[in-house]
Protein backbone atom coordinates (compact mmCIF):
# COMPACT_ATOMS: atom_id res chain seq x y z
CA UNK A 1 0.00 0.00 0.00
CA UNK A 2 1.42 3.34 -1.07
CA UNK A 3 1.76 6.45 1.02
CA UNK A 4 0.16 9.70 -0.05
CA UNK A 5 2.69 12.14 -1.50
CA UNK A 6 4.58 14.62 0.64
CA UNK A 7 7.73 16.65 0.58
CA UNK A 8 10.48 14.92 2.53
CA UNK A 9 13.07 16.78 4.60
CA UNK A 10 16.08 15.02 6.05
CA UNK A 11 17.82 17.64 8.22
CA UNK A 12 21.31 16.88 9.48
CA UNK A 13 21.08 19.16 12.50
CA UNK A 14 18.49 19.41 15.23
CA UNK A 15 18.28 23.18 14.76
CA UNK A 16 17.41 22.68 11.12
CA UNK A 17 14.68 20.24 12.10
CA UNK A 18 13.31 22.73 14.61
CA UNK A 19 13.32 25.42 11.95
CA UNK A 20 11.45 23.25 9.47
CA UNK A 21 8.98 22.10 12.11
CA UNK A 22 8.41 25.70 13.16
CA UNK A 23 7.95 26.79 9.57
CA UNK A 24 5.51 24.10 8.49
CA UNK A 25 3.65 23.49 11.75
CA UNK A 26 0.43 21.58 11.25
CA UNK A 27 1.29 20.88 7.62
CA UNK A 28 4.20 18.71 8.72
CA UNK A 29 4.79 15.54 10.72
CA UNK A 30 7.95 14.36 12.41
CA UNK A 31 9.26 10.95 11.42
CA UNK A 32 11.34 9.03 13.94
CA UNK A 33 11.29 5.22 13.64
CA UNK A 34 8.07 5.32 11.66
CA UNK A 35 6.59 2.20 13.21
CA UNK A 36 3.44 4.05 14.22
CA UNK A 37 3.47 6.98 11.80
CA UNK A 38 3.89 5.00 8.57
CA UNK A 39 0.88 2.73 9.19
CA UNK A 40 -1.08 5.81 10.23
CA UNK A 41 -0.16 7.54 6.98
CA UNK A 42 -1.39 4.46 5.10
CA UNK A 43 -4.68 4.72 6.96
CA UNK A 44 -5.00 8.37 6.06
CA UNK A 45 -4.89 9.55 9.67
CA UNK A 46 -2.44 12.21 8.53
CA UNK A 47 -1.85 13.73 5.14
CA UNK A 48 1.11 16.02 5.77
CA UNK A 49 2.52 18.18 3.04
CA UNK A 50 5.91 17.88 4.69
CA UNK A 51 7.57 15.01 6.47
CA UNK A 52 10.60 15.84 8.59
CA UNK A 53 12.73 12.72 8.98
CA UNK A 54 14.85 12.95 12.12
CA UNK A 55 16.87 9.89 11.12
CA UNK A 56 19.82 11.79 9.65
CA UNK A 57 20.52 13.87 12.77
CA UNK A 58 23.61 12.25 14.25
CA UNK A 59 23.43 13.93 17.65
CA UNK A 60 20.07 12.47 18.59
CA UNK A 61 21.22 8.93 19.25
CA UNK A 62 23.17 7.26 21.98
CA UNK A 63 23.28 6.56 25.69
CA UNK A 64 25.69 8.57 27.86
CA UNK A 65 26.38 9.78 31.40
CA UNK A 66 26.20 13.41 32.44
CA UNK A 67 28.83 14.88 34.75
CA UNK A 68 26.47 14.53 37.73
CA UNK A 69 25.96 10.84 37.07
CA UNK A 70 22.55 11.19 35.43
CA UNK A 71 21.92 9.14 32.32
CA UNK A 72 21.11 10.76 29.00
CA UNK A 73 19.45 8.91 26.15
CA UNK A 74 19.05 10.50 22.73
CA UNK A 75 15.49 10.56 21.46
CA UNK A 76 16.43 8.69 18.28
CA UNK A 77 18.09 5.86 20.18
CA UNK A 78 16.47 2.64 19.04
CA UNK A 79 14.23 0.83 21.52
CA UNK A 80 16.35 -2.24 21.00
CA UNK A 81 19.44 -0.40 22.24
CA UNK A 82 17.60 0.85 25.30
CA UNK A 83 16.42 -2.68 26.06
CA UNK A 84 19.74 -4.38 25.44
CA UNK A 85 22.31 -1.91 26.79
CA UNK A 86 24.03 -3.91 29.55
CA UNK A 87 24.96 -1.05 31.85
CA UNK A 88 21.64 0.76 31.49
CA UNK A 89 19.94 -2.58 32.06
CA UNK A 90 21.83 -3.09 35.29
CA UNK A 91 21.06 0.38 36.63
CA UNK A 92 17.47 0.56 35.38
CA UNK A 93 16.20 -2.99 34.85
CA UNK A 94 12.64 -1.68 34.84
CA UNK A 95 13.27 0.41 31.74
CA UNK A 96 14.95 -2.51 30.01
CA UNK A 97 12.00 -4.73 30.87
CA UNK A 98 9.47 -2.26 29.51
CA UNK A 99 11.46 -1.50 26.37
CA UNK A 100 12.18 -5.17 25.78
CA UNK A 101 8.47 -6.01 25.65
CA UNK A 102 7.54 -3.45 23.03
CA UNK A 103 5.93 -4.85 19.89
CA UNK A 104 8.33 -7.32 18.23
CA UNK A 105 12.10 -7.59 17.82
CA UNK A 106 12.15 -6.05 14.36
CA UNK A 107 9.93 -3.18 15.46
CA UNK A 108 12.19 -2.56 18.47
CA UNK A 109 15.10 -2.23 16.08
CA UNK A 110 13.22 0.36 14.06
CA UNK A 111 11.32 2.25 16.74
CA UNK A 112 12.96 4.92 18.88
CA UNK A 113 12.68 5.93 22.50
CA UNK A 114 11.54 9.43 21.60
CA UNK A 115 9.01 8.04 19.17
CA UNK A 116 7.64 5.74 21.84
CA UNK A 117 7.26 8.61 24.31
CA UNK A 118 5.51 10.69 21.66
CA UNK A 119 3.30 7.85 20.45
CA UNK A 120 -0.08 8.92 19.21
CA UNK A 121 -2.98 7.73 21.35
CA UNK A 122 -4.85 4.68 20.10
CA UNK A 123 -8.49 3.79 19.75
CA UNK A 124 -10.58 1.17 18.01
CA UNK A 125 -12.57 3.98 16.40
CA UNK A 126 -9.49 5.91 15.28
CA UNK A 127 -6.77 3.54 14.10
CA UNK A 128 -8.73 2.56 11.01
CA UNK A 129 -8.86 3.36 7.31
CA UNK A 130 -10.73 6.30 5.81
CA UNK A 131 -13.50 3.96 4.65
CA UNK A 132 -13.87 2.51 8.12
CA UNK A 133 -13.95 5.88 9.85
CA UNK A 134 -16.35 7.19 7.25
CA UNK A 135 -18.66 4.30 8.04
CA UNK A 136 -19.21 5.58 11.57
CA UNK A 137 -19.26 9.25 10.70
CA UNK A 138 -15.68 9.76 11.91
CA UNK A 139 -14.79 10.63 15.50
CA UNK A 140 -13.69 13.49 17.72
CA UNK A 141 -10.02 12.74 17.23
CA UNK A 142 -10.20 12.88 13.45
CA UNK A 143 -12.68 14.59 11.12
CA UNK A 144 -15.69 14.03 13.37
CA UNK A 145 -17.76 15.55 16.14
CA UNK A 146 -18.63 12.57 18.29
CA UNK A 147 -16.76 10.19 20.52
CA UNK A 148 -17.97 6.62 19.98
CA UNK A 149 -16.34 5.54 23.21
CA UNK A 150 -18.16 8.05 25.37
CA UNK A 151 -21.03 9.34 23.21
CA UNK A 152 -22.31 12.69 24.27
CA UNK A 153 -18.99 13.76 25.74
CA UNK A 154 -16.64 16.29 24.22
CA UNK A 155 -13.48 14.52 25.35
CA UNK A 156 -11.34 12.13 23.38
CA UNK A 157 -10.54 8.97 25.33
CA UNK A 158 -8.06 7.36 22.96
CA UNK A 159 -5.56 5.45 25.08
CA UNK A 160 -1.93 6.38 25.37
CA UNK A 161 -0.21 3.05 24.79
CA UNK A 162 3.55 3.40 25.03
CA UNK A 163 5.47 1.03 27.28
CA UNK A 164 8.49 3.16 28.12
CA UNK A 165 6.50 6.10 29.43
CA UNK A 166 5.32 4.53 32.71
CA UNK A 167 8.77 3.08 33.33
CA UNK A 168 10.41 6.45 32.80
CA UNK A 169 7.76 8.22 34.88
CA UNK A 170 8.43 6.06 37.91
CA UNK A 171 12.17 6.48 37.38
CA UNK A 172 11.58 10.23 37.64
CA UNK A 173 12.82 10.95 34.13
CA UNK A 174 12.74 14.31 32.48
CA UNK A 175 12.83 15.17 28.82
CA UNK A 176 14.67 17.81 26.88
CA UNK A 177 12.57 19.77 24.46
CA UNK A 178 14.33 21.61 21.67
CA UNK A 179 12.40 24.49 20.23
CA UNK A 180 12.69 27.76 18.40
CA UNK A 181 13.58 29.48 21.68
CA UNK A 182 16.22 26.95 22.62
CA UNK A 183 16.13 23.85 24.76
CA UNK A 184 14.25 23.30 28.02
CA UNK A 185 13.89 20.39 30.39
CA UNK A 186 10.63 19.28 31.88
CA UNK A 187 9.51 16.37 34.01
CA UNK A 188 8.19 13.64 31.74
CA UNK A 189 4.73 13.81 33.30
CA UNK A 190 4.40 17.35 32.03
CA UNK A 191 4.82 16.21 28.44
CA UNK A 192 1.33 14.75 28.46
CA UNK A 193 -1.85 16.77 28.22
CA UNK A 194 -4.33 14.06 29.17
CA UNK A 195 -6.44 14.83 26.13
CA UNK A 196 -6.66 11.93 23.70
CA UNK A 197 -6.94 14.09 20.63
CA UNK A 198 -3.81 16.17 21.32
CA UNK A 199 -1.85 14.08 23.76
CA UNK A 200 1.41 16.04 23.87
CA UNK A 201 1.98 19.41 25.46
CA UNK A 202 4.46 20.73 22.92
CA UNK A 203 4.55 24.11 21.30
CA UNK A 204 5.07 24.89 17.65
CA UNK A 205 8.47 23.74 16.47
CA UNK A 206 9.25 21.77 19.61
CA UNK A 207 10.97 18.40 19.37
CA UNK A 208 11.72 15.94 22.16
CA UNK A 209 15.47 15.49 21.87
CA UNK A 210 16.77 13.71 24.98
CA UNK A 211 15.67 11.79 28.01
CA UNK A 212 17.38 12.19 31.39
CA UNK A 213 17.33 9.47 34.00
CA UNK A 214 18.46 10.73 37.41
CA UNK A 215 21.30 8.87 39.05
CA UNK A 216 19.16 8.78 42.19
CA UNK A 217 16.76 6.38 40.50
CA UNK A 218 19.45 3.89 39.59
CA UNK A 219 19.24 0.58 41.37
CA UNK A 220 15.59 0.88 42.39
CA UNK A 221 13.65 -2.33 42.40
CA UNK A 222 11.19 -2.36 39.58
CA UNK A 223 8.43 -4.34 38.05
CA UNK A 224 6.80 -3.89 34.66
CA UNK A 225 3.50 -5.69 34.28
CA UNK A 226 2.04 -5.79 30.82
CA UNK A 227 -1.18 -7.24 29.48
CA UNK A 228 -1.66 -7.98 25.86
CA UNK A 229 -3.31 -10.90 24.10
CA UNK A 230 -0.29 -12.08 22.15
CA UNK A 231 3.22 -12.26 23.52
CA UNK A 232 4.62 -10.27 20.63
CA UNK A 233 3.59 -7.55 18.16
CA UNK A 234 0.57 -6.34 20.16
CA UNK A 235 0.35 -2.97 21.84
CA UNK A 236 -0.32 -3.13 25.59
CA UNK A 237 -3.96 -3.20 26.69
CA UNK A 238 -3.15 -2.43 30.30
CA UNK A 239 0.25 -2.03 31.83
CA UNK A 240 1.85 -0.76 34.97
CA UNK A 241 5.33 0.16 36.15
CA UNK A 242 6.45 0.24 39.74
CA UNK A 243 9.80 1.45 41.07
CA UNK A 244 10.51 1.04 44.73
CA UNK A 245 13.33 1.38 47.18
CA UNK A 246 13.41 0.60 50.87
CA UNK A 247 15.68 3.16 52.45
CA UNK A 248 18.03 2.34 55.28
CA UNK A 249 15.74 4.04 57.80
CA UNK A 250 12.87 1.81 56.77
CA UNK A 251 11.12 4.45 54.69
CA UNK A 252 9.93 3.46 51.26
CA UNK A 253 10.47 5.44 48.11
CA UNK A 254 7.99 4.27 45.50
CA UNK A 255 6.32 5.45 42.34
CA UNK A 256 3.73 3.67 40.24
CA UNK A 257 2.47 4.58 36.78
CA UNK A 258 -0.08 3.19 34.33
CA UNK A 259 -0.28 3.06 30.58
CA UNK A 260 -2.64 1.84 27.87
CA UNK A 261 -5.64 2.75 30.01
CA UNK A 262 -6.00 6.53 29.99
CA UNK A 263 -5.34 9.20 27.37
CA UNK A 264 -2.00 9.82 29.08
CA UNK A 265 0.38 7.71 31.10
CA UNK A 266 -0.60 8.23 34.71
CA UNK A 267 1.75 8.62 37.64
CA UNK A 268 -0.42 7.52 40.54
CA UNK A 269 -0.56 10.29 43.14
CA UNK A 270 -0.31 9.62 46.86
CA UNK A 271 1.27 6.21 46.42
CA UNK A 272 4.06 6.57 48.93
CA UNK A 273 1.82 7.61 51.81
CA UNK A 274 -0.70 4.91 51.03
CA UNK A 275 2.01 2.30 50.73
CA UNK A 276 3.62 3.34 54.00
CA UNK A 277 0.28 2.85 55.74
CA UNK A 278 -0.20 -0.48 54.05
CA UNK A 279 3.20 -1.67 55.16
CA UNK A 280 2.60 -0.53 58.74
CA UNK A 281 -0.09 -3.17 59.09
CA UNK A 282 0.89 -6.69 59.96
CA UNK A 283 0.59 -8.48 57.69
CA UNK A 284 0.86 -5.67 55.11
CA UNK A 285 -2.51 -4.81 53.61
CA UNK A 286 -2.09 -3.84 50.00
CA UNK A 287 -5.80 -3.49 49.28
CA UNK A 288 -5.76 0.27 49.78
CA UNK A 289 -2.87 0.64 47.34
CA UNK A 290 -4.74 -1.44 44.80
CA UNK A 291 -7.76 0.82 45.32
CA UNK A 292 -5.56 3.84 44.63
CA UNK A 293 -4.65 2.31 41.30
CA UNK A 294 -8.30 1.51 40.71
CA UNK A 295 -9.19 5.18 41.11
CA UNK A 296 -6.45 6.30 38.73
CA UNK A 297 -7.26 3.91 35.91
CA UNK A 298 -9.88 5.02 33.39
CA UNK A 299 -10.09 2.31 30.77
CA UNK A 300 -12.89 2.74 28.25
CA UNK A 301 -13.93 0.69 25.24
CA UNK A 302 -11.07 1.83 23.04
CA UNK A 303 -10.21 -1.75 22.12
CA UNK A 304 -12.02 -5.00 21.37
CA UNK A 305 -10.86 -6.29 24.74
CA UNK A 306 -13.48 -5.20 27.27
CA UNK A 307 -12.62 -2.16 29.37
CA UNK A 308 -13.83 -3.75 32.59
CA UNK A 309 -11.41 -6.60 32.10
CA UNK A 310 -8.55 -4.18 31.48
CA UNK A 311 -9.43 -2.52 34.77
CA UNK A 312 -9.42 -5.82 36.63
CA UNK A 313 -6.15 -6.67 34.99
CA UNK A 314 -4.38 -3.54 36.15
CA UNK A 315 -5.44 -4.25 39.72
CA UNK A 316 -3.92 -7.69 39.48
CA UNK A 317 -0.81 -6.11 38.00
CA UNK A 318 -0.60 -3.65 40.88
CA UNK A 319 -0.68 -6.42 43.45
CA UNK A 320 1.81 -8.51 41.54
CA UNK A 321 4.22 -5.62 41.07
CA UNK A 322 4.02 -4.71 44.75
CA UNK A 323 4.56 -8.29 45.84
CA UNK A 324 7.50 -8.64 43.48
CA UNK A 325 9.18 -5.45 44.67
CA UNK A 326 8.49 -6.00 48.36
CA UNK A 327 9.60 -9.62 48.37
Amino acid at each position, binding site marked *: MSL*PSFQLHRPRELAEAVALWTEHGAAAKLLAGGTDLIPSLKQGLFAPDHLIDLGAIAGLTGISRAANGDWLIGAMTRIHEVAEDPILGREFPLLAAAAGQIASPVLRRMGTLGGNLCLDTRCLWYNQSYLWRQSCGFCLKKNGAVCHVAPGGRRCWAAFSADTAPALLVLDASVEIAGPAGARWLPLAELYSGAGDHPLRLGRGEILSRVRLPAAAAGMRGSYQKFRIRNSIDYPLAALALALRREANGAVTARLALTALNPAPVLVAGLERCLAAALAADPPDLAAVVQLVNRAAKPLSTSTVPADYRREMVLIQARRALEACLA
Partner: protein
Amino acid sequence: MITAFTVNGQPRRLELDPATLLLEALREHLRLTGTKCGCDDSSCGACTVLVNGQPALACTLLAAGCDGADITTIEGIATDGRLTALQRAFGRMGGAQCGFCTPGMVMAAKALLDGNPDPSDGEIQAALSGNICRCTGYVQILASVRAALAEAAGAAADAARPKAAADAQRRAAGPTPPPQAAEPQSAHG
Protein backbone atom coordinates in the same frame (compact mmCIF):
# COMPACT_ATOMS: atom_id res chain seq x y z
CA MET B 1 14.50 12.58 -5.36
CA ILE B 2 17.63 10.54 -5.95
CA THR B 3 18.29 7.72 -3.56
CA ALA B 4 21.47 5.70 -3.67
CA PHE B 5 22.00 2.51 -1.74
CA THR B 6 23.56 -0.89 -2.10
CA VAL B 7 21.21 -3.77 -2.70
CA ASN B 8 22.56 -7.29 -2.52
CA GLY B 9 26.05 -5.95 -3.07
CA GLN B 10 25.18 -3.85 -6.09
CA PRO B 11 25.17 -0.06 -5.92
CA ARG B 12 21.79 1.30 -7.03
CA ARG B 13 20.72 4.84 -7.80
CA LEU B 14 17.02 5.46 -8.12
CA GLU B 15 14.92 8.51 -8.91
CA LEU B 16 12.01 8.11 -6.54
CA ASP B 17 8.99 9.98 -5.29
CA PRO B 18 9.87 10.90 -1.69
CA ALA B 19 6.88 8.93 -0.41
CA THR B 20 8.22 5.70 -1.89
CA LEU B 21 8.57 2.93 0.63
CA LEU B 22 11.65 0.73 0.59
CA LEU B 23 9.31 -2.17 -0.22
CA GLU B 24 8.08 -0.37 -3.33
CA ALA B 25 11.59 0.54 -4.38
CA LEU B 26 12.63 -3.10 -4.13
CA ARG B 27 9.57 -4.71 -5.68
CA GLU B 28 8.52 -2.18 -8.28
CA HIS B 29 11.65 -0.28 -9.19
CA LEU B 30 14.25 -3.03 -8.85
CA ARG B 31 11.82 -5.91 -9.55
CA LEU B 32 13.14 -7.77 -6.53
CA THR B 33 9.78 -9.33 -5.75
CA GLY B 34 11.04 -11.89 -3.25
CA THR B 35 10.28 -9.44 -0.44
CA LYS B 36 6.53 -9.70 0.22
CA CYS B 37 3.78 -7.41 1.44
CA GLY B 38 1.43 -9.21 3.82
CA CYS B 39 -0.18 -6.44 5.87
CA ASP B 40 -0.44 -2.69 5.88
CA ASP B 41 0.13 -2.09 9.56
CA SER B 42 3.69 -3.28 10.16
CA SER B 43 2.51 -6.37 11.97
CA CYS B 44 3.37 -9.45 9.90
CA GLY B 45 7.08 -9.40 9.05
CA ALA B 46 6.69 -10.71 5.48
CA CYS B 47 8.73 -7.77 4.16
CA THR B 48 11.70 -8.27 6.48
CA VAL B 49 15.02 -7.33 4.85
CA LEU B 50 18.39 -6.48 6.31
CA VAL B 51 19.40 -2.84 6.45
CA ASN B 52 23.03 -2.55 7.42
CA GLY B 53 22.80 -6.08 8.73
CA GLN B 54 19.80 -5.40 10.98
CA PRO B 55 16.34 -6.79 10.26
CA ALA B 56 13.88 -4.12 9.19
CA LEU B 57 10.39 -3.96 7.72
CA ALA B 58 10.66 -2.68 4.16
CA CYS B 59 6.98 -1.66 4.26
CA THR B 60 7.64 0.75 7.11
CA LEU B 61 10.78 2.47 5.87
CA LEU B 62 10.97 5.29 3.39
CA ALA B 63 13.34 4.36 0.60
CA ALA B 64 14.87 7.82 0.92
CA GLY B 65 15.59 7.12 4.57
CA CYS B 66 17.82 4.25 3.45
CA ASP B 67 20.08 6.52 1.42
CA GLY B 68 23.60 5.18 1.73
CA ALA B 69 22.51 1.96 3.42
CA ASP B 70 23.53 -1.58 2.64
CA ILE B 71 20.39 -3.58 1.96
CA THR B 72 20.11 -7.34 1.68
CA THR B 73 17.02 -9.11 0.42
CA ILE B 74 16.12 -12.78 0.10
CA GLU B 75 17.48 -12.72 -3.45
CA GLY B 76 20.88 -11.66 -2.18
CA ILE B 77 21.88 -14.33 0.28
CA ALA B 78 22.59 -17.33 -1.95
CA THR B 79 26.21 -17.57 -3.03
CA ASP B 80 27.09 -18.56 -6.59
CA GLY B 81 23.56 -19.78 -7.17
CA ARG B 82 23.68 -22.13 -4.20
CA LEU B 83 21.05 -21.54 -1.58
CA THR B 84 22.28 -21.04 1.97
CA ALA B 85 21.98 -23.77 4.58
CA LEU B 86 19.08 -21.85 6.07
CA GLN B 87 17.17 -21.71 2.77
CA ARG B 88 17.81 -25.38 2.07
CA ALA B 89 16.70 -26.34 5.57
CA PHE B 90 13.41 -24.44 5.16
CA GLY B 91 12.81 -26.50 2.02
CA ARG B 92 13.82 -29.81 3.52
CA MET B 93 12.17 -29.56 6.93
CA GLY B 94 8.79 -28.18 5.88
CA GLY B 95 9.55 -24.64 7.04
CA ALA B 96 8.04 -23.29 3.82
CA GLN B 97 4.50 -24.32 2.98
CA CYS B 98 2.87 -21.57 0.95
CA GLY B 99 6.17 -19.73 1.01
CA PHE B 100 4.77 -16.25 1.40
CA CYS B 101 6.19 -15.60 4.86
CA THR B 102 9.35 -17.49 3.99
CA PRO B 103 11.54 -14.66 2.69
CA GLY B 104 10.85 -12.55 5.76
CA MET B 105 11.22 -15.53 8.05
CA VAL B 106 14.53 -16.53 6.46
CA MET B 107 15.85 -12.97 6.70
CA ALA B 108 14.85 -12.68 10.35
CA ALA B 109 16.51 -16.01 11.07
CA LYS B 110 19.60 -15.01 9.14
CA ALA B 111 19.90 -11.80 11.15
CA LEU B 112 19.78 -13.86 14.33
CA LEU B 113 22.32 -16.43 13.19
CA ASP B 114 24.69 -13.79 11.84
CA GLY B 115 24.97 -12.37 15.34
CA ASN B 116 24.47 -15.55 17.38
CA PRO B 117 25.78 -18.78 15.91
CA ASP B 118 24.48 -20.91 18.77
CA PRO B 119 21.02 -19.68 19.78
CA SER B 120 18.69 -21.54 22.11
CA ASP B 121 15.18 -22.45 20.97
CA GLY B 122 13.91 -19.57 23.05
CA GLU B 123 16.23 -17.14 21.32
CA ILE B 124 15.14 -18.40 17.92
CA GLN B 125 11.48 -18.04 18.87
CA ALA B 126 12.07 -14.55 20.22
CA ALA B 127 13.89 -13.52 17.06
CA LEU B 128 11.08 -14.78 14.84
CA SER B 129 8.26 -13.43 16.97
CA GLY B 130 7.57 -10.50 14.65
CA ASN B 131 6.99 -12.80 11.69
CA ILE B 132 3.58 -14.35 11.18
CA CYS B 133 3.26 -17.67 9.40
CA ARG B 134 -0.25 -18.91 8.71
CA CYS B 135 0.65 -22.40 7.51
CA THR B 136 3.10 -24.17 9.76
CA GLY B 137 2.24 -23.42 13.36
CA TYR B 138 5.97 -22.57 13.46
CA VAL B 139 6.99 -26.06 14.56
CA GLN B 140 8.71 -26.91 11.29
CA ILE B 141 10.11 -23.39 11.05
CA LEU B 142 11.90 -23.86 14.35
CA ALA B 143 13.04 -27.28 13.12
CA SER B 144 14.35 -25.66 9.92
CA VAL B 145 16.48 -23.14 11.79
CA ARG B 146 17.76 -25.91 14.04
CA ALA B 147 18.59 -28.06 11.02
CA ALA B 148 20.52 -25.22 9.43
CA LEU B 149 22.45 -24.79 12.66
CA ALA B 150 23.16 -28.50 12.81
CA GLU B 151 24.42 -28.41 9.25
CA ALA B 152 26.66 -25.46 10.06
CA ALA B 153 27.90 -27.23 13.17
CA GLY B 154 28.58 -30.34 11.12
CA ALA B 155 30.48 -28.31 8.56
CA ALA B 156 32.48 -26.62 11.29
CA ALA B 157 33.27 -29.97 12.85
CA ASP B 158 34.34 -31.21 9.43
CA ALA B 159 36.59 -28.22 8.97
CA ALA B 160 38.18 -28.80 12.35
CA ARG B 161 38.92 -32.42 11.62
CA PRO B 162 42.09 -33.56 9.83
CA LYS B 163 41.32 -33.54 6.15
CA ALA B 164 42.03 -37.20 5.50
CA ALA B 165 39.68 -38.33 8.23
CA ALA B 166 36.94 -36.12 6.89
CA ASP B 167 37.53 -37.43 3.39
CA ALA B 168 37.35 -41.00 4.64
CA GLN B 169 34.10 -40.29 6.39
CA ARG B 170 32.69 -38.65 3.30
CA ARG B 171 33.69 -41.64 1.16
CA ALA B 172 32.05 -43.96 3.64
CA ALA B 173 28.87 -41.93 3.49
CA GLY B 174 28.59 -42.34 -0.28
CA PRO B 175 28.36 -39.81 -3.06
CA THR B 176 27.21 -36.34 -2.21
CA PRO B 177 24.12 -35.17 -4.02
CA PRO B 178 24.63 -32.46 -6.58
CA PRO B 179 24.02 -28.95 -5.38
CA GLN B 180 20.48 -27.76 -5.58
CA ALA B 181 20.34 -24.58 -7.57
CA ALA B 182 17.83 -21.84 -7.14
CA GLU B 183 15.15 -22.26 -9.74
CA PRO B 184 14.70 -19.59 -12.35
CA GLN B 185 11.81 -17.20 -12.31
CA SER B 186 8.49 -18.94 -12.76
CA ALA B 187 7.56 -19.51 -16.37
CA HIS B 188 4.30 -17.79 -15.62
CA GLY B 189 6.08 -14.53 -15.05
